[in-house]
């Protein structure tokens, strides 16, 4: 399963945050911390498992916990139209 950020979403990294602009609705979203890291990994077109692996290296948390939190976060992004699932 792959997650993609559509071309209609504009991403800009600013200091410790990442700003996402949905160019269709012109809504802005700001993410920092883990959210920022996830968006950066999504931008690299990694699979879910690859993202989990990367996050576990960064945060030294068990993979099952990461997977659970990641899926919840991805659901929230998908609901806002900021990612699409392949």
């Amino acid at each position, binding site marked *: 399963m792959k997650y993609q950020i559509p*071309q209609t979403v*504009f*991403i*800009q*990294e600013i*200091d410790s945050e990442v*700003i996402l*602009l949905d*160019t269709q609705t012109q809504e802005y979203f700001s993410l920092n911390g883990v959210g920022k890291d996830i968006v950066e990994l999504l931008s690299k077109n990694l699979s879910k498992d690859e993202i989990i692996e990367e996050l576990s290296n960064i945060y030294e948390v068990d993979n099952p916990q990461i997977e659970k939190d990641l899926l919840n976060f991805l659901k929230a992004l998908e609901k806002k139209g900021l990612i699409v699932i392949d």
Partner: protein
Amino acid sequence: MNKIEDWEGFVSLAYSHGIFPLVYRTLKEYAHLIPEYIFAHMKQNYMDIVKQNMLMTSELIKVIKILEENGIEAISFKGPVLSQMAYGDVVSRQYCDLDVLVQKEEIFKIENLLKNKYKRALKLTSSQEDIWIKYAHDLSLTNQNGINIEFHWSMFDSNHPINLLKINFFKHSIKTIINNQNINTISNEKFLVYLCIHGSKHLYERIEWVCDIDRFIKTQKVDWDIVEDIIKNDNSKKFFLLGLFLTKILFNTDLGKNYENHFDNEYESIRSHIFDTWNGKQKSDNKNNMKYMLKLFVSKTDKLKYLNKIYFKPTFTEYWYVNLPKPLYFLYYPLRQYLLLKKYFFNKEDN
């Protein structure tokens, strides 16, 4: 930083020079030395610029896509494209509009394609429209969010002696990537020539324009032999060299072997005047700048053409001010004199 007493004035100055994002990003690690309420305002201003720039860039991408889908050749320059190329992102420069170079014969087709979202600011009569297309060099359209796009068919006013009309900016165009999208822009060498001449024509009233030249040279591959080929026999050469001179003085920019030692005392006198305008010792207006602007023209003919354009030749402003029938067009000449007097003397007295 401890010597700054007027922080609000400082921030306002950075903003007016178009370098606020750079100033903010440099100073934020010294936030502890800045009054808290000032820094909070600075951060808010910066985020406002970031969001506005992102919105404008996304609009540019959408518009370019529409043009491409309809077979219209379009080259983006300045704005987000320059920001991305010279600064690595679209948020490090201040820009208030978008600039796209197109062929003149495509203008009305473009206006029609975008009519659902973009409108002209001015409604013209048909005779004014005929004049406008003769005198203007761009079509300005604005959307409901206030985003303004200028579709240029020449880089500069063809009535100005420095107009670069002989350069085909479409030739050797390159692509830059913004948000994973390819955007066409002008070649590095032509872009550099354009930046220098654009800034010089305004006598660098914004420091941003010198920063742009420095950053462009430092980040983009510039073939100085190609630059020399473009500029060597052109009447714009001194305008071009002034930009290089300023960036060398301010930022010690490496200008390559062609231009390292190319500057005589005349550039220093112009530099001194520009710095005086930055320091507030002199105003940056036509009256104060005229003497220095004239130094940049190579020939007397160009100087006379320039003076004629500034002081005598009617512009679209006069044709817009009052819609005279064609037999009375000669009255636009005294009208121009009246409007100039009003602008520089009567309005000054009112103030």
